[in-house]
Protein backbone atom coordinates (compact mmCIF):
# COMPACT_ATOMS: atom_id res chain seq x y z
CA UNK A 1 0.00 0.00 0.00
CA UNK A 2 1.23 3.48 -0.85
CA UNK A 3 1.37 6.21 1.85
CA UNK A 4 1.59 9.66 0.28
CA UNK A 5 3.47 12.48 1.95
CA UNK A 6 4.08 15.93 0.48
CA UNK A 7 6.74 17.88 2.39
CA UNK A 8 7.46 20.51 -0.29
CA UNK A 9 6.12 23.45 1.71
CA UNK A 10 7.89 22.62 4.95
CA UNK A 11 10.97 24.26 6.37
CA UNK A 12 13.94 22.05 7.36
CA UNK A 13 14.04 19.90 9.39
CA UNK A 14 10.24 19.35 9.30
CA UNK A 15 10.39 17.22 6.13
CA UNK A 16 12.81 14.87 7.88
CA UNK A 17 10.70 14.80 11.04
CA UNK A 18 7.54 13.96 9.06
CA UNK A 19 9.30 11.26 7.03
CA UNK A 20 10.75 9.61 10.16
CA UNK A 21 7.33 9.65 11.84
CA UNK A 22 5.64 8.23 8.73
CA UNK A 23 8.15 5.38 8.51
CA UNK A 24 7.04 4.18 11.94
CA UNK A 25 3.50 3.66 10.59
CA UNK A 26 4.58 1.42 7.67
CA UNK A 27 3.10 -2.11 7.78
CA UNK A 28 4.34 -5.12 5.80
CA UNK A 29 3.94 -4.43 2.07
CA UNK A 30 3.67 -0.65 2.60
CA UNK A 31 5.93 1.99 1.15
CA UNK A 32 6.11 5.75 1.53
CA UNK A 33 5.79 8.03 -1.48
CA UNK A 34 7.31 11.42 -0.59
CA UNK A 35 7.30 14.53 -2.76
CA UNK A 36 9.80 17.25 -1.88
CA UNK A 37 11.12 20.40 -3.54
CA UNK A 38 14.74 19.45 -2.70
CA UNK A 39 16.65 16.19 -2.50
CA UNK A 40 16.66 15.28 1.22
CA UNK A 41 20.26 14.10 1.33
CA UNK A 42 20.69 14.56 5.06
CA UNK A 43 18.13 11.91 5.88
CA UNK A 44 19.86 9.14 3.89
CA UNK A 45 22.39 8.15 6.61
CA UNK A 46 19.55 7.98 9.13
CA UNK A 47 17.54 5.73 6.83
CA UNK A 48 20.57 3.51 6.40
CA UNK A 49 20.97 3.20 10.16
CA UNK A 50 17.29 2.33 10.50
CA UNK A 51 17.43 -0.48 7.92
CA UNK A 52 15.33 1.51 5.49
CA UNK A 53 15.78 1.50 1.69
CA UNK A 54 14.93 4.34 -0.67
CA UNK A 55 14.95 5.46 -4.27
CA UNK A 56 15.04 9.14 -5.22
CA UNK A 57 13.96 10.36 -8.64
CA UNK A 58 13.80 13.87 -10.10
CA UNK A 59 10.20 14.81 -10.69
CA UNK A 60 10.06 17.45 -13.42
CA UNK A 61 10.26 21.03 -12.27
CA UNK A 62 8.47 20.15 -9.05
CA UNK A 63 11.50 18.68 -7.33
CA UNK A 64 11.95 15.07 -6.25
CA UNK A 65 9.95 11.95 -5.48
CA UNK A 66 11.31 9.55 -2.90
CA UNK A 67 10.09 5.98 -2.38
CA UNK A 68 10.89 4.59 1.06
CA UNK A 69 10.40 1.03 2.38
CA UNK A 70 11.83 -1.42 4.94
CA UNK A 71 14.87 -3.17 3.48
CA UNK A 72 13.62 -6.66 4.30
CA UNK A 73 10.13 -5.99 2.89
CA UNK A 74 10.26 -7.49 -0.61
CA UNK A 75 6.51 -7.05 -1.15
CA UNK A 76 6.82 -3.29 -0.59
CA UNK A 77 9.82 -3.14 -2.90
CA UNK A 78 7.91 -4.99 -5.63
CA UNK A 79 4.95 -2.60 -5.31
CA UNK A 80 7.02 0.51 -6.11
CA UNK A 81 6.26 1.83 -9.61
CA UNK A 82 9.18 1.44 -12.06
Amino acid sequence: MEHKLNVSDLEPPEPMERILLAIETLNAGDYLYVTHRREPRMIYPMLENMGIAWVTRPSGSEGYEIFIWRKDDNAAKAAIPA
Partner: protein
Amino acid sequence: MQASRSSLSLEQAPPLSVPLRFFVTAPIFGLLAALLLIIYGPEILTNRWAPATLALTHLITLGFLGMIMCGAMMQMLPVLAGSPVPKVKPVATAVHTLLTIGILALASGFLSGITGLFHLALTTLGLGFLIFIIAISIALMRIRTPNDTIHSMRLAIASLATTVMLGLTIGAGFSGMTSLSQLIPLTDIHLGWGILGWIGLLVVGVAYQVVPMFQLTPEYPKKLTTPLSWVIFSTLIIWAPLYLAWGNGHLSKWVPDSWILLPAIGYILFAGTTLWLQQKRRRRVSDVTLLFWRTGMIFIAACLLLWLIGFTPITKAQPIFSLLLGIWLLFGVAVSVVNGMLYKIVPFLTWFHLQNRQVALMSMGKVKVPNMKELMPDRLTRRQLYAHLTTLLLLTLALFWPYPLAHIAGLSLGVSCSLLLFNLLQAARRYSQVNQELSDFETSR
Protein backbone atom coordinates in the same frame (compact mmCIF):
# COMPACT_ATOMS: atom_id res chain seq x y z
CA MET B 1 19.80 8.10 -7.20
CA GLN B 2 20.26 5.70 -4.31
CA ALA B 3 22.08 5.12 -1.09
CA SER B 4 25.46 5.78 -2.68
CA ARG B 5 24.78 9.55 -2.51
CA SER B 6 24.53 9.42 1.26
CA SER B 7 28.10 10.68 1.66
CA LEU B 8 26.73 14.22 1.57
CA SER B 9 25.72 14.34 5.16
CA LEU B 10 26.24 15.56 8.66
CA GLU B 11 27.89 12.23 9.45
CA GLN B 12 31.13 13.75 8.23
CA ALA B 13 30.45 16.93 10.14
CA PRO B 14 32.40 17.78 13.28
CA PRO B 15 30.86 17.42 16.75
CA LEU B 16 28.52 20.23 17.77
CA SER B 17 31.15 21.64 20.13
CA VAL B 18 33.33 22.68 17.15
CA PRO B 19 31.05 25.37 15.68
CA LEU B 20 29.28 26.11 18.97
CA ARG B 21 32.41 27.39 20.73
CA PHE B 22 32.84 29.99 17.96
CA PHE B 23 29.14 30.95 18.03
CA VAL B 24 29.02 31.37 21.81
CA THR B 25 32.25 33.40 21.90
CA ALA B 26 30.89 35.90 19.35
CA PRO B 27 28.28 37.65 21.57
CA ILE B 28 30.85 37.82 24.38
CA PHE B 29 33.05 39.93 22.09
CA GLY B 30 29.90 41.87 21.20
CA LEU B 31 29.44 42.54 24.93
CA LEU B 32 33.00 43.83 25.20
CA ALA B 33 32.30 46.15 22.25
CA ALA B 34 29.16 47.35 24.05
CA LEU B 35 31.20 48.00 27.19
CA LEU B 36 33.61 50.19 25.20
CA LEU B 37 30.70 52.16 23.80
CA ILE B 38 29.22 52.63 27.27
CA ILE B 39 32.56 53.77 28.72
CA TYR B 40 33.96 55.87 25.87
CA GLY B 41 30.64 57.06 24.41
CA PRO B 42 30.89 60.00 22.00
CA GLU B 43 34.66 59.60 21.51
CA ILE B 44 34.04 56.37 19.57
CA LEU B 45 31.51 57.93 17.24
CA THR B 46 33.34 61.10 16.31
CA ASN B 47 36.62 59.87 14.82
CA ARG B 48 37.31 56.59 13.02
CA TRP B 49 40.99 56.73 14.06
CA ALA B 50 40.34 57.05 17.80
CA PRO B 51 41.91 54.09 19.69
CA ALA B 52 38.56 53.09 21.20
CA THR B 53 36.91 53.21 17.75
CA LEU B 54 39.59 50.90 16.31
CA ALA B 55 39.23 48.56 19.29
CA LEU B 56 35.42 48.45 18.91
CA THR B 57 35.61 47.91 15.14
CA HIS B 58 37.89 44.90 15.56
CA LEU B 59 35.84 43.46 18.41
CA ILE B 60 32.88 43.44 16.00
CA THR B 61 34.65 42.42 12.76
CA LEU B 62 37.00 39.82 14.23
CA GLY B 63 35.31 39.00 17.52
CA PHE B 64 31.65 38.87 16.51
CA LEU B 65 31.50 38.39 12.74
CA GLY B 66 34.84 36.58 12.28
CA MET B 67 34.15 34.05 15.03
CA ILE B 68 30.72 33.12 13.65
CA MET B 69 31.94 32.94 10.06
CA CYS B 70 34.92 30.73 10.96
CA GLY B 71 32.72 28.36 12.97
CA ALA B 72 30.06 28.26 10.28
CA MET B 73 32.56 27.43 7.52
CA MET B 74 33.99 24.49 9.47
CA GLN B 75 30.47 23.17 9.89
CA MET B 76 29.08 23.96 6.45
CA LEU B 77 31.76 22.50 4.19
CA PRO B 78 31.03 18.88 5.10
CA VAL B 79 27.26 19.46 5.13
CA LEU B 80 26.88 21.50 1.96
CA ALA B 81 29.73 20.11 -0.09
CA GLY B 82 30.59 16.74 1.47
CA SER B 83 34.15 17.95 2.09
CA PRO B 84 35.17 17.88 5.76
CA VAL B 85 37.85 20.21 7.09
CA PRO B 86 40.98 18.11 7.78
CA LYS B 87 41.83 17.51 11.46
CA VAL B 88 38.84 19.65 12.36
CA LYS B 89 38.97 19.18 16.17
CA PRO B 90 42.61 20.30 16.71
CA VAL B 91 42.23 22.94 13.98
CA ALA B 92 39.12 24.37 15.68
CA THR B 93 40.81 24.37 19.11
CA ALA B 94 43.94 26.09 17.75
CA VAL B 95 42.04 28.64 15.64
CA HIS B 96 39.54 29.48 18.38
CA THR B 97 42.24 29.87 21.06
CA LEU B 98 44.63 31.89 18.90
CA LEU B 99 41.93 34.20 17.56
CA THR B 100 40.46 34.78 21.04
CA ILE B 101 43.88 35.73 22.46
CA GLY B 102 44.66 37.80 19.36
CA ILE B 103 41.41 39.78 19.40
CA LEU B 104 41.71 40.55 23.12
CA ALA B 105 45.36 41.58 22.67
CA LEU B 106 44.54 43.76 19.65
CA ALA B 107 41.67 45.58 21.36
CA SER B 108 43.76 46.11 24.53
CA GLY B 109 46.69 47.21 22.34
CA PHE B 110 44.58 49.89 20.69
CA LEU B 111 43.28 51.11 24.03
CA SER B 112 46.57 51.09 25.91
CA GLY B 113 49.08 51.71 23.13
CA ILE B 114 51.36 49.02 24.62
CA THR B 115 53.59 47.72 21.79
CA GLY B 116 53.93 44.25 23.31
CA LEU B 117 50.17 43.72 23.03
CA PHE B 118 50.30 44.53 19.31
CA HIS B 119 53.14 42.02 18.86
CA LEU B 120 51.13 39.37 20.68
CA ALA B 121 48.04 40.21 18.59
CA LEU B 122 49.92 40.09 15.28
CA THR B 123 51.52 36.73 16.13
CA THR B 124 48.38 35.00 17.39
CA LEU B 125 45.99 36.43 14.79
CA GLY B 126 48.48 35.74 11.98
CA LEU B 127 48.97 32.15 13.12
CA GLY B 128 45.27 31.55 13.85
CA PHE B 129 44.14 32.79 10.45
CA LEU B 130 47.00 30.95 8.71
CA ILE B 131 45.83 27.62 10.20
CA PHE B 132 42.20 28.42 9.37
CA ILE B 133 42.92 29.48 5.78
CA ILE B 134 45.12 26.42 5.07
CA ALA B 135 42.59 23.95 6.56
CA ILE B 136 39.60 25.50 4.78
CA SER B 137 41.51 25.81 1.50
CA ILE B 138 42.36 22.09 1.58
CA ALA B 139 38.68 21.24 2.08
CA LEU B 140 37.61 23.67 -0.67
CA MET B 141 40.19 22.39 -3.16
CA ARG B 142 39.13 18.77 -2.62
CA ILE B 143 35.68 19.50 -4.05
CA ARG B 144 35.60 18.05 -7.56
CA THR B 145 32.40 19.62 -8.85
CA PRO B 146 32.18 23.04 -7.23
CA ASN B 147 28.89 24.93 -7.44
CA ASP B 148 28.46 28.70 -7.19
CA THR B 149 28.45 28.54 -3.38
CA ILE B 150 31.86 26.86 -3.38
CA HIS B 151 33.24 29.36 -5.93
CA SER B 152 32.07 32.19 -3.65
CA MET B 153 33.60 30.51 -0.60
CA ARG B 154 36.94 30.09 -2.40
CA LEU B 155 36.97 33.76 -3.35
CA ALA B 156 35.90 34.71 0.19
CA ILE B 157 38.87 32.79 1.62
CA ALA B 158 41.24 34.48 -0.86
CA SER B 159 39.75 37.81 0.28
CA LEU B 160 40.27 36.85 3.92
CA ALA B 161 43.94 36.03 3.20
CA THR B 162 44.33 39.46 1.56
CA THR B 163 42.55 41.22 4.44
CA VAL B 164 44.72 39.47 7.04
CA MET B 165 47.97 40.21 5.19
CA LEU B 166 47.02 43.87 4.88
CA GLY B 167 45.96 43.92 8.54
CA LEU B 168 49.28 42.43 9.66
CA THR B 169 51.20 44.96 7.54
CA ILE B 170 49.20 47.87 8.97
CA GLY B 171 49.52 46.42 12.49
CA ALA B 172 53.31 46.15 12.10
CA GLY B 173 53.41 49.79 10.99
CA PHE B 174 51.02 50.90 13.72
CA SER B 175 53.14 49.29 16.44
CA GLY B 176 56.37 50.70 15.04
CA MET B 177 57.80 47.38 13.82
CA THR B 178 58.10 48.78 10.29
CA SER B 179 57.72 52.20 8.79
CA LEU B 180 54.48 52.71 6.92
CA SER B 181 54.01 55.61 4.56
CA GLN B 182 50.49 54.85 3.29
CA LEU B 183 48.53 54.14 6.44
CA ILE B 184 45.22 55.66 5.27
CA PRO B 185 44.98 54.05 1.79
CA LEU B 186 46.19 50.68 3.12
CA THR B 187 43.61 50.80 5.93
CA ASP B 188 40.83 51.58 3.45
CA ILE B 189 41.96 48.71 1.17
CA HIS B 190 42.07 46.42 4.24
CA LEU B 191 38.49 47.49 5.04
CA GLY B 192 37.37 47.06 1.42
CA TRP B 193 38.70 43.50 1.16
CA GLY B 194 37.35 42.62 4.60
CA ILE B 195 33.80 43.88 4.04
CA LEU B 196 33.23 43.61 0.29
CA GLY B 197 35.47 40.54 -0.11
CA TRP B 198 35.55 38.22 2.90
CA ILE B 199 32.22 39.06 4.59
CA GLY B 200 30.26 39.90 1.43
CA LEU B 201 31.32 36.95 -0.70
CA LEU B 202 30.75 34.46 2.10
CA VAL B 203 27.28 35.86 2.76
CA VAL B 204 26.48 35.67 -0.97
CA GLY B 205 27.71 32.08 -1.29
CA VAL B 206 25.90 30.88 1.82
CA ALA B 207 22.71 32.69 0.77
CA TYR B 208 22.52 30.66 -2.46
CA GLN B 209 22.01 27.58 -0.28
CA VAL B 210 20.26 28.71 2.86
CA VAL B 211 17.74 31.26 1.54
CA PRO B 212 15.94 28.77 -0.75
CA MET B 213 16.34 25.98 1.83
CA PHE B 214 15.16 27.72 5.00
CA GLN B 215 13.02 30.54 3.64
CA LEU B 216 11.27 28.31 1.05
CA THR B 217 12.02 30.64 -1.84
CA PRO B 218 12.73 29.73 -5.46
CA GLU B 219 16.43 29.19 -6.29
CA TYR B 220 18.60 32.23 -7.12
CA PRO B 221 18.78 32.68 -10.92
CA LYS B 222 21.92 31.13 -12.44
CA LYS B 223 22.57 34.22 -14.55
CA LEU B 224 23.18 36.09 -11.28
CA THR B 225 24.94 33.41 -9.21
CA THR B 226 27.46 32.31 -11.85
CA PRO B 227 29.15 35.67 -12.57
CA LEU B 228 28.43 37.68 -9.38
CA SER B 229 31.26 36.57 -7.06
CA TRP B 230 33.84 36.60 -9.86
CA VAL B 231 32.84 40.11 -10.89
CA ILE B 232 33.00 41.41 -7.30
CA PHE B 233 36.35 39.73 -6.66
CA SER B 234 37.98 40.93 -9.89
CA THR B 235 36.76 44.50 -9.44
CA LEU B 236 38.33 44.49 -5.96
CA ILE B 237 41.64 43.28 -7.44
CA ILE B 238 41.68 46.28 -9.80
CA TRP B 239 40.37 48.72 -7.16
CA ALA B 240 43.26 48.11 -4.71
CA PRO B 241 46.10 49.40 -7.00
CA LEU B 242 43.89 52.28 -8.14
CA TYR B 243 43.41 53.30 -4.52
CA LEU B 244 47.14 53.00 -3.82
CA ALA B 245 47.86 55.13 -6.89
CA TRP B 246 45.60 57.80 -5.37
CA GLY B 247 47.54 57.42 -2.10
CA ASN B 248 50.80 58.06 -3.99
CA GLY B 249 49.32 61.13 -5.64
CA HIS B 250 49.30 59.61 -9.14
CA LEU B 251 45.54 59.50 -9.53
CA SER B 252 42.52 61.57 -8.64
CA LYS B 253 40.35 60.07 -5.87
CA TRP B 254 37.25 59.93 -8.03
CA VAL B 255 38.82 57.10 -10.09
CA PRO B 256 39.01 54.44 -7.30
CA ASP B 257 35.83 55.86 -5.72
CA SER B 258 33.90 55.42 -8.96
CA TRP B 259 35.40 51.98 -9.57
CA ILE B 260 34.24 50.69 -6.16
CA LEU B 261 30.68 51.34 -7.31
CA LEU B 262 30.98 48.23 -9.52
CA PRO B 263 31.11 45.70 -6.65
CA ALA B 264 28.57 47.85 -4.82
CA ILE B 265 26.16 47.47 -7.75
CA GLY B 266 26.83 43.71 -7.65
CA TYR B 267 25.72 43.65 -4.02
CA ILE B 268 22.64 45.74 -4.83
CA LEU B 269 21.65 43.16 -7.44
CA PHE B 270 22.15 40.44 -4.86
CA ALA B 271 20.09 42.30 -2.24
CA GLY B 272 17.30 43.07 -4.73
CA THR B 273 17.16 39.45 -5.88
CA THR B 274 17.05 38.19 -2.28
CA LEU B 275 14.16 40.52 -1.41
CA TRP B 276 12.35 39.50 -4.62
CA LEU B 277 12.83 35.78 -3.85
CA GLN B 278 11.59 36.32 -0.29
CA GLN B 279 8.43 37.88 -1.71
CA LYS B 280 7.86 34.68 -3.71
CA ARG B 281 8.40 32.24 -0.84
CA ARG B 282 6.11 29.22 -0.66
CA ARG B 283 4.93 29.68 2.89
CA ARG B 284 4.32 33.29 3.79
CA VAL B 285 4.98 32.94 7.49
CA SER B 286 6.80 35.71 9.32
CA ASP B 287 10.11 34.43 10.55
CA VAL B 288 12.82 36.06 12.66
CA THR B 289 15.70 35.01 10.39
CA LEU B 290 13.79 36.37 7.41
CA LEU B 291 13.41 39.73 9.18
CA PHE B 292 17.11 39.83 10.08
CA TRP B 293 17.94 39.11 6.43
CA ARG B 294 15.50 41.70 5.13
CA THR B 295 17.10 44.29 7.42
CA GLY B 296 20.50 43.35 6.01
CA MET B 297 19.35 43.57 2.38
CA ILE B 298 17.62 46.93 2.90
CA PHE B 299 20.78 48.29 4.53
CA ILE B 300 22.84 47.23 1.48
CA ALA B 301 20.67 49.57 -0.58
CA ALA B 302 20.85 52.27 2.12
CA CYS B 303 24.67 52.03 2.15
CA LEU B 304 24.89 52.53 -1.61
CA LEU B 305 22.59 55.54 -1.35
CA LEU B 306 24.70 56.95 1.47
CA TRP B 307 27.86 56.33 -0.53
CA LEU B 308 26.43 58.28 -3.46
CA ILE B 309 25.29 61.15 -1.21
CA GLY B 310 28.81 61.20 0.22
CA PHE B 311 30.10 62.18 -3.24
CA THR B 312 28.29 65.50 -3.29
CA PRO B 313 30.43 68.59 -2.56
CA ILE B 314 28.42 69.54 0.55
CA THR B 315 28.82 66.18 2.25
CA LYS B 316 32.27 65.20 0.97
CA ALA B 317 34.21 66.77 3.81
CA GLN B 318 31.90 65.50 6.56
CA PRO B 319 33.56 62.67 8.54
CA ILE B 320 30.10 61.68 9.75
CA PHE B 321 29.40 60.03 6.38
CA SER B 322 32.26 57.56 6.58
CA LEU B 323 31.30 56.73 10.18
CA LEU B 324 27.64 56.26 9.27
CA LEU B 325 28.61 54.10 6.29
CA GLY B 326 30.80 52.01 8.60
CA ILE B 327 27.99 51.57 11.15
CA TRP B 328 25.41 50.64 8.53
CA LEU B 329 27.74 48.22 6.75
CA LEU B 330 28.86 46.49 9.93
CA PHE B 331 25.73 46.54 12.09
CA GLY B 332 23.02 47.08 9.47
CA VAL B 333 24.23 44.58 6.89
CA ALA B 334 26.82 42.17 8.31
CA VAL B 335 25.64 41.74 11.92
CA SER B 336 21.99 41.50 10.82
CA VAL B 337 22.62 38.75 8.28
CA VAL B 338 25.10 36.75 10.38
CA ASN B 339 22.99 37.03 13.55
CA GLY B 340 19.87 35.94 11.64
CA MET B 341 21.68 32.98 10.15
CA LEU B 342 22.70 31.75 13.60
CA TYR B 343 19.00 31.27 14.42
CA LYS B 344 18.75 28.66 11.69
CA ILE B 345 22.18 27.06 11.93
CA VAL B 346 22.25 26.48 15.70
CA PRO B 347 18.80 24.88 16.24
CA PHE B 348 19.11 22.90 13.00
CA LEU B 349 22.49 21.44 13.97
CA THR B 350 21.34 20.78 17.52
CA TRP B 351 18.23 18.99 16.31
CA PHE B 352 20.16 17.02 13.71
CA HIS B 353 22.86 15.77 16.09
CA LEU B 354 20.20 14.66 18.59
CA GLN B 355 18.01 13.08 15.92
CA ASN B 356 20.97 11.24 14.41
CA ARG B 357 21.86 9.80 17.81
CA GLN B 358 18.26 8.87 18.48
CA VAL B 359 18.08 6.93 15.21
CA ALA B 360 21.41 5.22 15.93
CA LEU B 361 20.09 4.14 19.36
CA MET B 362 16.64 3.26 17.98
CA SER B 363 15.14 5.21 20.87
CA MET B 364 12.20 6.69 18.94
CA GLY B 365 9.18 7.01 21.21
CA LYS B 366 11.41 6.64 24.31
CA VAL B 367 13.33 9.93 24.25
CA LYS B 368 11.71 13.01 22.71
CA VAL B 369 13.97 15.13 20.55
CA PRO B 370 12.77 18.75 20.68
CA ASN B 371 12.03 20.43 17.36
CA MET B 372 13.72 23.61 16.15
CA LYS B 373 11.12 25.96 17.59
CA GLU B 374 11.45 24.29 20.98
CA LEU B 375 15.24 24.61 20.83
CA MET B 376 15.12 28.26 19.76
CA PRO B 377 11.69 29.68 20.63
CA ASP B 378 10.40 32.55 18.45
CA ARG B 379 9.55 34.76 21.43
CA LEU B 380 13.23 34.73 22.50
CA THR B 381 14.71 35.35 19.04
CA ARG B 382 12.14 38.06 18.25
CA ARG B 383 13.04 39.85 21.49
CA GLN B 384 16.68 39.93 20.39
CA LEU B 385 15.71 41.14 16.89
CA TYR B 386 13.97 44.15 18.47
CA ALA B 387 17.03 44.84 20.63
CA HIS B 388 19.23 44.68 17.51
CA LEU B 389 16.97 47.07 15.55
CA THR B 390 16.91 49.47 18.50
CA THR B 391 20.72 49.37 18.62
CA LEU B 392 20.88 50.18 14.91
CA LEU B 393 18.58 53.16 15.33
CA LEU B 394 20.42 54.45 18.41
CA LEU B 395 23.85 54.08 16.76
CA THR B 396 22.61 56.06 13.76
CA LEU B 397 21.10 58.83 15.91
CA ALA B 398 24.17 58.86 18.18
CA LEU B 399 26.27 60.13 15.26
CA PHE B 400 24.18 63.30 15.29
CA TRP B 401 23.67 63.55 19.08
CA PRO B 402 26.70 61.69 20.49
CA TYR B 403 25.93 62.67 24.07
CA PRO B 404 24.14 60.87 25.68
CA LEU B 405 23.00 58.61 22.81
CA ALA B 406 26.38 56.92 22.30
CA HIS B 407 26.27 55.60 25.86
CA ILE B 408 22.64 54.50 25.45
CA ALA B 409 23.49 52.77 22.14
CA GLY B 410 26.21 50.90 24.04
CA LEU B 411 23.63 49.74 26.59
CA SER B 412 21.33 48.63 23.81
CA LEU B 413 24.14 46.71 22.08
CA GLY B 414 24.87 45.07 25.42
CA VAL B 415 21.23 44.01 25.79
CA SER B 416 21.16 42.64 22.23
CA CYS B 417 24.38 40.62 22.67
CA SER B 418 23.26 39.34 26.11
CA LEU B 419 19.98 38.11 24.62
CA LEU B 420 21.82 36.42 21.74
CA LEU B 421 24.19 34.73 24.20
CA PHE B 422 21.26 33.65 26.37
CA ASN B 423 19.42 32.18 23.36
CA LEU B 424 22.48 30.25 22.21
CA LEU B 425 23.16 28.92 25.71
CA GLN B 426 19.51 27.88 26.08
CA ALA B 427 19.82 25.74 22.93
CA ALA B 428 23.14 24.32 24.17
CA ARG B 429 21.59 23.51 27.58
CA ARG B 430 18.63 21.77 25.95
CA TYR B 431 21.05 19.81 23.77
CA SER B 432 22.99 18.63 26.84
CA GLN B 433 19.76 17.62 28.61
CA VAL B 434 18.41 15.52 25.74
CA ASN B 435 21.85 14.11 24.96
CA GLN B 436 22.04 12.96 28.59
CA GLU B 437 18.59 11.37 28.30
CA LEU B 438 19.84 9.51 25.22
CA SER B 439 22.95 8.39 27.13
CA ASP B 440 20.74 7.18 30.01
CA PHE B 441 18.62 5.24 27.51
CA GLU B 442 21.77 3.69 26.03
CA THR B 443 23.04 2.48 29.42
CA SER B 444 19.62 1.20 30.49
CA ARG B 445 19.24 -1.13 27.49
